[in-house]
């Protein structure tokens, strides 16, 4: 699929990438400069014609030689200039697109971590633990129970007496019935899961019991068999409850293929997908590594691995962990929960993000974004038809074997097209050791090197522009050297013309030579100067475009984080223990509940506090009591977020509100509050309370903003650049540099940036505290019920 055509470490020749206009430009300058050489020769010949004086001849020849040298020097410079332009462009795009690749993989890494935490939380659901332990208990007693049933039936066959001649039954019939029942005995475990089998068994046993009732002395058998049937039916109730719980989770997370719960022997006892239940329940999957590893997982461990699934188009990412007694986390493992995620579908849109669109609205041809694991196997891609998940990526080793936080880019042939590949490995800060996945972004070489960038609207003169921090140092040096060369040619020409003038009529033949040299030198150096200005403008335009992408990425990352958390809150609100507590008087000590909330908060440090409030707005429990501003204030009935949640309809999404929470959180003024109504069983009734989470901007936003700072080719944030989030009042919510852009203070954004509408981006220049900056802004997509999502991200960088 790919073929490396350039060594990553060696400087690549960029001449092949020159645009047609640049090629013409280059050829014209070189031709102009080459055109001076015969003129110089002509000048040397003229020197001999116009003067017999050796000193005069030497003066003319010396001037001509100087011109020749300068022309050769300029000619070399112009070729270097183009190489340098394209090399810089490559380097710039390398830094820019590696950042994009890095952001994507870190976002996915973060998603993996969040999903792992979610799975651990789901494993703590009491219904699942109850189901697993109940089935385990039943399963354990099944052998003695069926042995006892066999003994009862044997006794019944011997002692059964036909009560009257009116009955058509015979002892042979009874034997046949008992024989029929015993055929179910080897499949006794299956009876717990297989509804059809259990129905047959119940029917057959009930018929036998009906018959035995007609006899005498069979009370013991009838009673025992009835008890056994009840026990098996009880299992069914537990399984149904567990499956219902799993179905509910899957309905909240539609990208899940399935969720499977096993007992400690690897037997599947519940799953989320009803259409596959018959096939899956009672299957033993202990041989599957996701199951065996989960059963050995520690209390805070979630296994993540790839698995091929029968009947599914894409491989799944499996998150699995152990199920333990929710009351005693140190107790032995009861079973396992494994979540099969359709990762390809889930991250396909993320992978497609920030790839340029063509005029047809689709991603431009030749652009790909995909992830590979440590073996180079493709995990997911933006175009599964072209870059197939599960196949070998076949990229060069340098791209496959990156370590945490490392990036690399190179020029190669991908899918038969000359392309650039930008790769970045997850930083590993989000998950324990990181996923180790590598994100790759493939772009056609022509798009990277030859796309014309429109000049930004800047009010800078050329000299000021060339002093900009955004312009590479080498361009500045070349510009300065060019000014010197230009001046040198001019001086030579002026001195030449002066010399010709001093010769009077004899020098008349020499004057046009120097006029031509002046004109050609001026034209060549002017062209080179305008090229350098074009390069500088292009550099600034690329920077603006990159900063827009970074601002958009910051907004998207934050929005995704918020949406994911709101999804999780929907599930938490349905947790039975919250419902049970609120349904009780509420006066009972909430020690256990607070322990549970603390446990959740430990897993999800993104929240500053999690509160459980009753229908009157009184705080019944919270995860971090010490963070409450005043312990006397235990009521939030007048808070907007509480009222909104209480007024919400059943099954409505979590309310996200930006609110002043100083009353409830001493350290915070404004925060995002996620609030979800809790309803009693059935879910359609009026709310019985509210579960509210205070989002920690500082922890989340700071990390996201730092990842979205513009970086140098070495991966370090560029000096002076700042990224920050601001709300609709232009108050800074979080900043990467609080000393220059202060948090909780008003920031004077340019009008175009302040008035930005939802999901849009804009970039330009502005002056802040006497410093010229380039600024890019992106606004969060505004959702109707999420008034807390009205924020924007901004990335600024000094221009001069």
């Amino acid at each position, binding site marked *: 699929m790919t073929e490396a055509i350039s060594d990553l470490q060696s400087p690549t020749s960029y001449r092949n990438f020159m645009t047609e206009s640049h090629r013409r430009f280059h050829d014209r300058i070189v031709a102009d400069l080459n055109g001076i050489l015969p003129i110089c020769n002509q000048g040397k010949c003229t020197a001999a014609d116009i003067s017999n004086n050796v000193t005069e001849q030497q003066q003319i020849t010396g001037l001509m030689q100087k011109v020749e040298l300068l022309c050769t020097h300029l000619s070399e410079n112009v070729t270097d200039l183009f190489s340098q332009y394209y090399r810089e462009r490559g380097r710039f795009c390398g830094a820019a697109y590696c950042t994009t690749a890095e952001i994507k993989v870190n976002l996915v890494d973060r998603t993996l971590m969040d999903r792992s935490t979610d799975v651990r939380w789901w494993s703590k659901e009491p219904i699942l633990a109850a189901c697993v332990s109940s089935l385990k208990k039943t399963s354990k007693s099944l052998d003695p129970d069926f042995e006892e049933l066999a003994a009862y039936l044997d006794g019944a066959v011997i002692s059964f007496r036909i009560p009257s001649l009116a009955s058509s039954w015979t002892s042979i019939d009874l034997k046949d019935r008992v024989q029929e029942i015993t055929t179910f005995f080897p499949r006794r475990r299956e009876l717990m899961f297989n509804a059809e089998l259990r129905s047959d068994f119940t029917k057959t046993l009930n018929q036998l019991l009906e018959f035995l009732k007609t006899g005498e002395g069979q009370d013991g058998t009838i009673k025992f068999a009835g008890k056994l049937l009840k026990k098996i039916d009880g299992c069914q109730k537990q399984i149904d409850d567990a499956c219902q719980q799993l179905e509910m989770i899957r309905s909240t997370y539609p990208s899940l293929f399935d969720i499977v719960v096993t007992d400690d022997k690897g037997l599947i006892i519940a799953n989320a997908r009803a259409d596959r239940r018959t096939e899956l329940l009672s299957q033993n999957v202990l041989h599957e590594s996701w199951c065996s590893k989960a059963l050995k997982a520690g209390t805070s461990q979630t296994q993540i691995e790839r698995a091929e699934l029968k009947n599914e188009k894409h491989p799944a990412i499996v998150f699995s962990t152990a199920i333990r007694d929710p009351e005693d986390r140190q107790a032995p493992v009861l079973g396992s929960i494994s979540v099969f995620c359709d990762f390809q579908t889930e991250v396909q849109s993320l992978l497609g993000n920030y790839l340029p669109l063509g005029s047809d609205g689709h991603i431009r041809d030749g652009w790909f974004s995909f992830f590979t694991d440590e073996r180079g196997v493709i995990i997911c891609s933006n175009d599964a038809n072209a870059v197939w998940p599960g196949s070998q990526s076949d990229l060069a080793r340098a791209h496959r074997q990156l370590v945490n936080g490392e990036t690399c880019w190179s020029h190669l042939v991908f899918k038969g097209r000359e392309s650039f590949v930008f790769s970045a490995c997850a930083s590993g800060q989000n998950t324990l050791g990181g996923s180790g996945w590598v994100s790759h972004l493939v772009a056609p070489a022509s798009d990277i090197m030859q796309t014309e960038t429109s000049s930004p609207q800047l009010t800078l003169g050329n000299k000021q522009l060339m002093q900009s921090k955004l312009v590479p140092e080498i361009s500045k040096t070349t510009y300065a050297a060019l000014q010197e060369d230009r001046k040198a040619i001019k001086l030579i020409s002026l001195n030449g013309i002066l010399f010709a*003038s001093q010769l009077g009529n004899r020098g008349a033949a020499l004057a046009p030579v120097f006029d031509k040299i002046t004109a050609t030198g001026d034209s060549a150096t002017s062209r080179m100067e305008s090229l350098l200005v074009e390069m500088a403008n292009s550099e600034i335009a690329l920077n603006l475009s990159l900063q827009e992408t970074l601002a958009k990425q910051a907004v998207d990352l934050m929005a995704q984080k918020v949406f994911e958390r709101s999804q999780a809150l929907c599930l938490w609100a349905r947790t039975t223990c919250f419902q049970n507590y609120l349904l009780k008087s509420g006066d009972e000590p909430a020690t256990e509940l607070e322990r549970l909330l603390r446990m959740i908060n430990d897993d999800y440090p993104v929240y500053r506090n999690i509160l459980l409030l009753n229908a009157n707005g009184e705080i019944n429990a919270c995860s971090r009591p010490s963070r409450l501003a005043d312990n006397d204030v235990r009521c939030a009935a007048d808070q907007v977020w509480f009222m909104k949640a209480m007024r919400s309809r059943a099954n409505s999404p979590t309310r996200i509100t930006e609110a002043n929470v100083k009353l409830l959180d001493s350290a915070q003024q404004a925060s995002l509050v996620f609030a979800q109504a809790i309803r009693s069983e059935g879910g359609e009734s009026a709310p019985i309370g509210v579960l509210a989470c205070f989002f920690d901007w500082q922890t989340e936003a700071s990390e996201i903003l730092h990842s979205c700072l513009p970086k140098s080719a070495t991966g370090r944030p560029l000096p002076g650049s700042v990224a920050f989030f601001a709300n609709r009042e232009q108050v800074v919510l979080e900043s990467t540099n609080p000393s220059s852009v202060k948090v909780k203070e008003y920031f004077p954004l340019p009008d175009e940036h302040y008035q930005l509408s939802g999901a849009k981006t804009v970039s330009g220049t502005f002056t802040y505290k006497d410093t010229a900056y380039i600024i890019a802004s992106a606004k969060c997509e505004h959702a109707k019920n999420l008034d807390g999502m009205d924020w924007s991200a901004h990335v600024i960088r000094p221009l001069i």
Partner: protein
Amino acid sequence: MRDRLISFWVGEQIYGMPLLLVGEFCPSMQVTPVAAVDARISGISHLRETSAVVLNMHKVLKTTGQSQIASPDMIYVVSQNCLCEEALSKKLISYEEPVVLEVDRLASIMDVDPGEMHPAPAHLSETFYDGVFDTDAGDLILLNFPKLIECLLSELNEIQR
């Protein structure tokens, strides 16, 4: 008969003087400062074993702005006895010593018709302005070099007195 001028920029004004008074155009060269001398004199420079006074044209011409040029251009004006035959035949007059003029930027060499010269406007009261030519770069003020030196010397003498 057309005259050939060298034009140059000092601040935002373009000036000109006869080309044949010039011995050489030089890039920025080392100037040795002289203590306790008028600010119009930048110092002494040495070119081809000859010493010459360097005049800061910004100060001589009393322009409003200061030179922002890091490396100004130099015009080496030859002494009267070193004028070429062509200059002598045109009856050009220089000073008895070589002088270097420090200007912001050399513009070009241009041929002008003396008949097209306008008198210097009233606000240009200095006697060393011969007149003004309309050029593409704007109004070019033609300097009378001997008068310029004469004015400078008389002012310096007055200061000394």
